[in-house]
């Protein structure tokens, strides 16, 4: 057992190539796969870079996701949250058994079957946006024309949030995820979005229907006599943010990657049955939400031969894990046929992404429809001039100029 104490590096590390993880991850994995690192919050934590260590940590009951606890390793300063009963952590910020119950209350909304039932509506939304894209000027920004509005509309309809307010909540969410804004601005964005959803849930409580997820949760809570307004607000908050930023970025990054790899694109055009496999590979290659796999130890535990003590923070660098040669042969090669189902881009363990099958479905419909209907699609600027989100907690593209 080793017990390395010195801090070897600081997170976050920058990607040098927009399509690969920060090069330091490889060095860390080779030299010291469980390594002390400094965080922008001033905390120190352990960084894990091997796939197996990350999976082990995320499925161990001795690591906590409780973001209320000061031991939780933060990569950006956390918003100050109200201490009173009006605030509840969201699913990603709590542990079992509290988490198990809360997740179970809503997971039925996200089953594979429920997602399939949304398919015609998502297809219609995608078709409408591609109609508008084709009717509009060239070049067009694919982020504004497709990547952002599609998942945003889908999650709004599913939750029961008026899409007409999208400018407002998209602005809040991008401020909350940006590393460039001041802690005060982030705090304001957090509070305005929370107040907005608080009011929205209050309105729905007065007139709840079966038509949307929030309404259904309200009715369900009434039936069980466990009405919990604060819990619904934090659920709405999590689903709204997680539901559009992540998928939007994967649509943009995936489009660029497929256009840059015409041989792979040709495979999915010839056989749309391969699109899902391509999506798994895109998820693995980019791993855009890698700090969602941060935890802290609640007991002394050994991971990868290193003792992690109770109270110490751990950042599972899932993007490093997804490029671990022990988990994926030639990890830096984009190969839609590698069968990368065991990646950790959606996390692992009890917190694994609740909306993952919605994300898969949206990506599948978008890629199949976009490349079929706009066969001449190409990027309108050199790829190295694209504005990649090196400044955000969730990786992606700020804009994607395309033409056809």
């Amino acid at each position, binding site marked *: 057992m080793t017990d390395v104490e010195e801090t070897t590096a600081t997170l976050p590390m920058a990607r040098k190539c927009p399509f690969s993880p920060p090069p330091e991850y490889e060095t860390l994995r080779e030299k010291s796969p469980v390594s002390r690192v400094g965080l922008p919050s001033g905390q120190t934590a352990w960084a894990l870079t091997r796939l197996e260590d990350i999976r082990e940590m*995320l499925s161990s009951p001795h690591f906590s996701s409780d973001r209320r606890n000061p031991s939780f390793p933060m990569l950006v300063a956390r918003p100050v949250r109200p201490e009173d009963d009006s605030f509840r952590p969201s699913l990603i910020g709590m542990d079992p058994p509290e988490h198990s119950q809360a997740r*179970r209350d809503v*997971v039925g909304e*996200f*089953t*594979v079957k429920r997602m399939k039932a949304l398919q015609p509506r998502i297809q219609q939304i995608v078709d409408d946006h591609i109609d508008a894209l084709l009717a509009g000027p060239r070049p067009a920004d694919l982020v504004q024309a497709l990547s952002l509005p599609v998942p945003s509309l889908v999650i709004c309809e599913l939750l029961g949030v008026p899409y007409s307010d999208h400018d407002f909540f998209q602005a809040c969410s991008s401020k909350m995820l940006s590393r460039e804004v001041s802690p005060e601005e982030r705090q304001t964005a957090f509070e305005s979005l929370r107040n907005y959803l608080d009011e929205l849930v209050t309105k729905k409580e007065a007139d709840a229907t079966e038509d949307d997820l929030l309404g259904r949760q309200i009715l369900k809570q009434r039936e069980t006599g466990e009405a919990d307004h604060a819990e619904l607000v934090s659920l709405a908050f999590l689903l709204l943010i997680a539901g559009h930023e992540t998928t939007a970025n994967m649509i943009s990054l995936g489009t660029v990657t497929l256009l840059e790899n015409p041989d792979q694109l040709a495979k999915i055009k010839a056989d749309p049955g391969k699109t899902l496999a391509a999506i798994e590979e895109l998820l693995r290659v980019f791993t855009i939400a890698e700090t969602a796999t941060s935890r802290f130890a609640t007991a002394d535990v050994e991971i990868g031969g290193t003792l992690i003590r109770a109270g110490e923070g751990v950042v599972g660098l899932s993007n490093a894990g997804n490029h671990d040669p022990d988990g994926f042969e030639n990890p830096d090669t984009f190969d839609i046929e590698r069968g990368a189902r065991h990646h950790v881009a959606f996390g692992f363990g009890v*917190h694994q*992404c609740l909306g*993952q099958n919605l994300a898969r479905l949206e990506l599948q419909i978008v890629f199949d429809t976009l490349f079929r209907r706009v066969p001449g699609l190409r990027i309108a600027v050199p790829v190295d001039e694209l504005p990649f989100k090196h400044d955000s907690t969730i990786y992606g593209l700020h804009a994607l100029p395309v033409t056809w």
Partner: protein
Amino acid sequence: MKIIADTGKCVGAGQCVLTDPDLFDQSEDDGTVLVLNAEPEGEEAEENARTAVHICPGQALSLA
């Protein structure tokens, strides 16, 4: 080969259903796993069962 599911551990991520909808489904109420065929036969079905066990995030599935 026999598939054993521990619904207490299942987090409803549906990875098993995506792997093989002939072997797995999810309950309508709480999304937990339903094993449709606990005794897969044939190479492909057995391979799918092994994949499902490997990628199940809740470690709710095992083979006996």
